[in-house]
């Protein structure tokens, strides 16, 4: 009851947020432009994939962090009411993550429906882009909640949020390249597979690339990855890894919320 009430009013608040509307409008226009001017097809999906992997996590973690810091004193007022902290937390997280995720689905999905809906070959990669974007939204809003609860100072919290994004989108890949070049004389397919599973953005990227039949360009490594991510075990393990990235930070954040001094 408390969760639903808080969710409903937070949804009402975010529905009117100019920042959120601006983000969704940009995503919508970008998707529409890619489909119209790149002739549709896999190239448009590939371009969109790069946008989804970079922009969606950044906006989710930065918007989420800023929103929660801005809501802190209102959260105190809510906590001063006869409501349980656990229920309040669930409402607050759902009220933040679901509008972002549903907005993403609409902003990217609708242009595909009327521009590329007839192309059956795109349905698989498109579904993967939508899946990945939605999951990354849920994961990075969970990280935003965790950051805002762990760090009291707003500027430091925002800095940490951006640092997390830089690490998972750029630095982590640089580390993988470093490992690959340093140990290029050794068979690295399995260690690289393991390292990929440790980063939600890499899981999304590899899954989407394999859907676009680009594995052949990646040589033997591509074949290993395709075999793994194409198998039931691989799908289960990668889905489990993304799920851990979502549920793990959320569980820690919930525990922190229930014990934190406000």
């Amino acid at each position: 009851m408390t969760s639903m009430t808080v969710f409903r009013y937070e949804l009402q608040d975010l529905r009117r947020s100019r920042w959120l509307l601006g983000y969704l409008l940009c995503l919508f226009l970008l998707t529409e432009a890619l489909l119209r001017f790149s002739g549709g097809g896999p190239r448009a999906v590939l371009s969109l994939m790069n946008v989804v992997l970079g922009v969606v996590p950044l906006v989710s973690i930065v918007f989420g962090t800023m929103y929660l810091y801005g809501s802190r004193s209102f959260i105190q007022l809510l906590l001063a009411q006869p409501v349980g902290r656990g229920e309040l937390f669930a409402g607050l997280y759902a009220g933040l993550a679901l509008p972002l995720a549903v907005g993403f689905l609409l902003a990217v999905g609708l242009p595909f429906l009327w521009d590329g809906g007839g192309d059956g070959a795109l349905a698989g990669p498109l579904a993967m882009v939508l899946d990945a974007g939605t999951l990354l939204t849920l994961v990075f809003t969970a990280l935003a909640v965790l950051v805002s609860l762990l760090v009291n100072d707003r500027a430091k919290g925002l800095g940490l949020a951006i640092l997390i994004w830089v690490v998972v989108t750029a630095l982590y890949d640089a580390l993988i390249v470093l490992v690959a070049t340093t140990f290029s004389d050794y068979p690295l397919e399995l260690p690289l597979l393991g390292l990929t599973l440790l980063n939600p953005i890499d899981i999304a990227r590899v899954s989407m690339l394999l859907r676009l039949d680009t594995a052949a360009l990646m040589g033997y490594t591509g074949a290993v990855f395709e075999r793994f991510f194409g198998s039931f075990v691989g799908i289960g393990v990668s889905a489990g890894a993304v799920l851990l990235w979502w549920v793990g930070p959320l569980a820690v954040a919930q525990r922190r919320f229930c014990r934190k001094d406000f």
Partner: protein
Amino acid sequence: MTDLAPLQAIPLPCAVIEGSGIGKRYGRVPVLRGIDLSVRAGRVTAVLGPNGAGKSTLVRVLLGLVRPDEGTVTVAGAPVGDGPAYRAAIGYMPQQPHFPENLTGREVVRLLRELRGQPIPEDDALFQAFGLTTELDKPVRVLSGGTKQKLNAALAFMFRPRILLLDEPTAGLDPVASGVLKARILEARQAGVSVLLVSHVLSEVEDLADDVLLLLDGQVEFQGSLRGLRELTGETRLEQAVAHLMRRRAS
């Protein structure tokens, strides 16, 4: 007057808020040190002290927002920490309200009504008294700081609580709204509501308070009636009485 009567019949004990040995540290910094307090029912108790004395932290401990490291607190007969139900008896007015900026004042009111689930009819007179009637349908982001503070005040009184915790309530209010708020506090006291008032405005405290709790460096320096404070210090004005105790402490 009757509309201010608290919702539940009050089997009033002589103290509605009791604390014993309350201690709280933020890191290595002690904020509250062995606070014993007793807030009597149906009276206005002012919490005084310089900045950083621990006044707001004490209020947050009473609300369960801050967990004390040591000591026990009982509010409205329920130990704080035994669940949130006791907070139904409390109306809280925080120091600086930040409501969701895209909601209207009316939506904020509805949100709190739904969360508390208390079947209280809309108190139009309350919002009218604070001059909020025409402001309630505007988004919070376009409201002035003073109007947000009026909304904050109205929310504290809205549920006819048995206990009011008011943290710097008149800060940011214009003289008219400030007068309305003071009148409401006095009416609430007459209706049997217990009020804990954190304030730096000593003239306001002299107008409203029956009892005083003076905090210095996280410790209780004085607790008792306003008259008792004056008698103890030999000062007639509250400002001088407080200064007297602060000087005594410093020496």
